[in-house]
């Protein structure tokens, strides 16, 4: 019986070898894949057992990791002024993953980024615990707070985006209603689930980042693009006379298109283009749009960034002109009605490009990444996306916007600062109050801040709401906060 016994011995050895080979496959070859699986709590616990890096803006701490004294989660995320900053910071949850900069800069924050390899090596030698790197945001905390307070304080829904026109830094990005990321930072799965469900069903979608992902009809703010297309077509300049009729018949349809309140554009039968802009005359711009044509309008919109995939680092929804079939829709598109849709971010980019001599800079939220000892790892270099319009065209539009500011109400005016602006009042379906828009930059001669504000559904005013009544004060407060804070 010895021969079979020896064969059985061989079989046993083969079994053990198989087991060893398979264990090697699992623990070495597939290890990384398994570690990065979603639903792998261990990776998460690992992350919660090291201090995650901080999110900083202009010396202010927005998010930090505090020791909990617990066993499973040694650190917990804390957000200062959570709801105001959550559109930028996002949240970090072991149940729902992460969002915002917490997500896009995860590698740096958890200390696994390649740029932190040297720090990890150092830690290995000195035996210090692993620390995450820090991320400095471009936000101006005063402006951000002002933006959020303006919206949330009034209890309205809306969004504000402020950019530095010269380098594309996002100075403010606020939404209302907003959510508090601290609610997803805790250690209790149930509490998080409760908060999540509550916010998911809450009125006004507080979890949505309106600034980058909600597409609004832009209303009259779109006239900036129509004007740019007109100037670029070569048929128009600052003083070109356009119709001043209180209402026009749309071609090839029996609908009419009136000015706001059925007013004539000024006192003459015709008005110069700048006055049509200043008074925001629908009839004039509808005809101008019809004159320059769909192709030119689309071309100009594209040069301003419509339809371009953009990450700031969160993805920005594509703004678009929608379908334009026929002259009547083209007329309506020219005044930002019909199917035109823009994000607040896109509208702020239009203002910023006009402010920056037509050069459109790429908006970005991350200023630099820092090692745990605050030495700079990487700085975001300003990046030009396009030359939206030539410099002189930009200056012409700026001059029109300075005139327009005189018609945009006085609420929240800042003495000694010349703002260039354009308001918008966007109808969106019957029975609903209009959205109010205000895009602007200031100071007009040397722009430091470009801003777009939208307040939904008439804000606190209702059916008589206009951009100058509900959105302008919000944006001006943000500009004031920025200019006073040396922004």
């Amino acid at each position, binding site marked *: 019986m010895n021969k079979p016994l020896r064969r059985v011995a061989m079989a046993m050895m083969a079994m053990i070898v198989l087991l060893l080979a398979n264990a090697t496959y699992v623990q070495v070859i597939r290890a990384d894949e398994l570690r990065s699986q979603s639903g792998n709590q*261990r990776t998460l616990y690992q992350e919660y057992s090291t201090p995650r890096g901080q999110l900083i803006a202009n010396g202010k701490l927005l998010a930090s990791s505090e020791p909990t004294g617990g066993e499973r989660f040694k650190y917990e995320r804390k957000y200062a002024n959570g709801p105001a900053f959550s559109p930028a910071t996002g949240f970090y949850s072991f149940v729902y993953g992460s969002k915002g900069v917490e997500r896009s800069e995860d590698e740096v924050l958890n200390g696994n980024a390649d740029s932190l390899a040297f720090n990890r090596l150092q830690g290995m030698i000195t035996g210090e615990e692993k620390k995450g790197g820090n991320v400095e945001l471009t936000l101006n905390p005063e402006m951000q707070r002002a933006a959020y307070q303006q919206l949330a304080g009034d209890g309205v829904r809306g969004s504000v985006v402020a950019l530095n026109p010269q380098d594309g830094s996002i100075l403010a990005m606020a939404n209302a209603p907003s959510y508090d990321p601290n609610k997803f930072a805790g250690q209790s799965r149930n509490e998080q689930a409760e908060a999540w469900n509550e916010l998911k069903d809450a009125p006004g979608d507080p979890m949505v980042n309106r600034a980058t992902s909600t597409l609004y009809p832009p209303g009259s703010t779109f006239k900036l693009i129509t004007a740019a297309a007109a100037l670029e077509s070569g048929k128009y300049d600052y003083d070109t006379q356009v119709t001043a009729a209180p209402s026009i018949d749309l071609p090839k349809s029996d609908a009419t298109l009136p000015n706001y309140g059925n007013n004539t554009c000024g006192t003459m039968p015709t008005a110069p283009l700048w006055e049509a802009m200043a008074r925001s005359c629908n009839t004039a711009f509808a005809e101008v749009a019809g004159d320059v044509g769909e192709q030119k309008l689309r071309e100009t919109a594209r040069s301003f960034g419509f339809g371009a995939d953009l990450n700031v680092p969160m993805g920005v929804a594509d703004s678009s002109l929608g379908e334009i079939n026929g002259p009547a829709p083209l007329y309506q598109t020219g005044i930002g009605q019909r199917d035109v849709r823009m994000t607040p971010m896109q509208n702020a980019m239009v203002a910023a490009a006009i402010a920056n001599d037509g050069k459109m800079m790429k908006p970005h939220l991350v200023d630099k990444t820092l090692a745990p000892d605050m030495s700079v790892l990487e700085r975001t270099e300003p990046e030009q996306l396009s030359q939206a319009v030539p410099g002189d065209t930009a200056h012409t539009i700026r001059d029109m916007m300075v005139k327009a500011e005189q018609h945009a109400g006085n609420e929240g005016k800042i003495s000694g600062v010349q703002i260039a602006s354009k308001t918008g009042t966007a109808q969106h379906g019957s029975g609903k109050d209009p959205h109010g828009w205000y895009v602007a930059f200031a100071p007009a001669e040397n722009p430091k801040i470009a801003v777009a504000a939208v307040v939904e559904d008439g804000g606190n005013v209702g059916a008589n709401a206009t951009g100058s009544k509900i959105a302008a004060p919000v944006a001006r407060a943000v500009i004031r906060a920025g200019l006073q804070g040396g922004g």
Partner: protein
Amino acid sequence: MAPTETDPGTPSTSGSSAQEATNPPRTPNRRGIELVMLGFVAVLVTSALALISINQESQPGTQILYYGLAFLALFGLTHLAVRRWAPYGDPLILPLVAFLNGFGLVLIHRVDIGNATEPEGPAASAPSQVAYTAIGLVLFVLVLKVVSDHRTLAKYAYTCGLVGLVALALPAVLPGFIAPPINGAKLWIRIGSLSFQPAEFAKILLLIFFAAFLVSKRELFTTAGRRFLGIDFPRARDLAPVLVAWAASIGIVVLERDLGTSLLFFGIVLVMIYIATERAVWIAIGLSLFALGCVVAYPLFGHLQERVNAWLNPLTSGSSGYQLRKALFGMAEGGIGGSGLGGGRPAIVPYAKSDFILSTAAEELGLLGLAVFLLVYLLLTARGLRVALAARDSFGKLLAGGLAFTISFQVFVVAGGVTGLIPLTGLTTPFLAAGGSSLVGNYMLVALLLRISDSSRRPQQPSKPQPKQPPIAEAHTELVERPR
């Protein structure tokens, strides 16, 4: 492999006996090696225990030293018993088992700590496992003392077989209050607060039965019968026990929902037939029967399909793959070197101290640690096979071979299941996993191995040199000759 007779360097036919120490000196029984090895194991286990408390950031107290000493004392006493009742037994088996058992205690303690931090976590198992270790060692000694000659076991072959089968089937047929289904499997008998798994003991009894039965029928298997397709087929009535075994193992799956035991059982029977008959064709027949069983059973049993699905897609198979998924994540976290004892999070894996204790080992001690455990098992089973090769009687050979294979096959089924090599089945990891029945049963199993090895290495009175002594002459086979 090892030489067939005895250890190298110990001429077995030296003609010297324990009584008359002429030349050459007495056969060394190498018990001293065993003691040294046990001491070494005790040091290893104590160090591991100390590492846990260091990694858990608590000071290792003198208590750990006492634990280590107690461990050494326990196995020291066992060692003395071996000296007394099996002086020529293999010196490596007990230290290897002590190594596994000791590290099992360490890992169970480690998971207990992890569970303690969680609300509603399972209760600590380390203290009861220590108690089971003591009970296991007592029974180990008892087996050595009572079974003074393993050949007497052959006399009780049918008794063993019957009792074994009954024990195996008992939980399935008993009502729920005595045999509650745990995790969908009815394997347990609960009397008061004590519960045990009869299958662990039935395993050994059935091994004894099969060894005795096959040894008595060996010739019939290979001679009587008819040739068909170039294969010698035995007569149907000689084939019957194999078919019974196969049917019983399928029955276990149906009644107790215990895939592991049925697989183990079937594997053992197959390998023992192969060893007894020396014909590989039995393996082929067995495997085809096994395949047939699988094909028939697969569509019928939902839990079987679930297991296979969990094995094929552990990451995407929802709740059925949950356990394996968690185990794989743990092992991946451990990597090559492991997180260190007390540095990982093994308690995340369900059943981290019983069914999944190998994944606990793999996480905290890494691939290297897991490899050590697997190699210790390989050593243990290799020693077991040496015992089989060296045994002087066919019954001992077959029994030892079966016992050794049982250990290694169990390890293969468990470790393969936990690491995703084969579908997961519920078997215990011998000596390592938390569980009293399995520990005590396996101690009895190695006691039999030691007994057989003692008898084969014991210096014999010089007898007339017989060129070939039929080993069967030693076996008591009167019982087998019953007419049917």
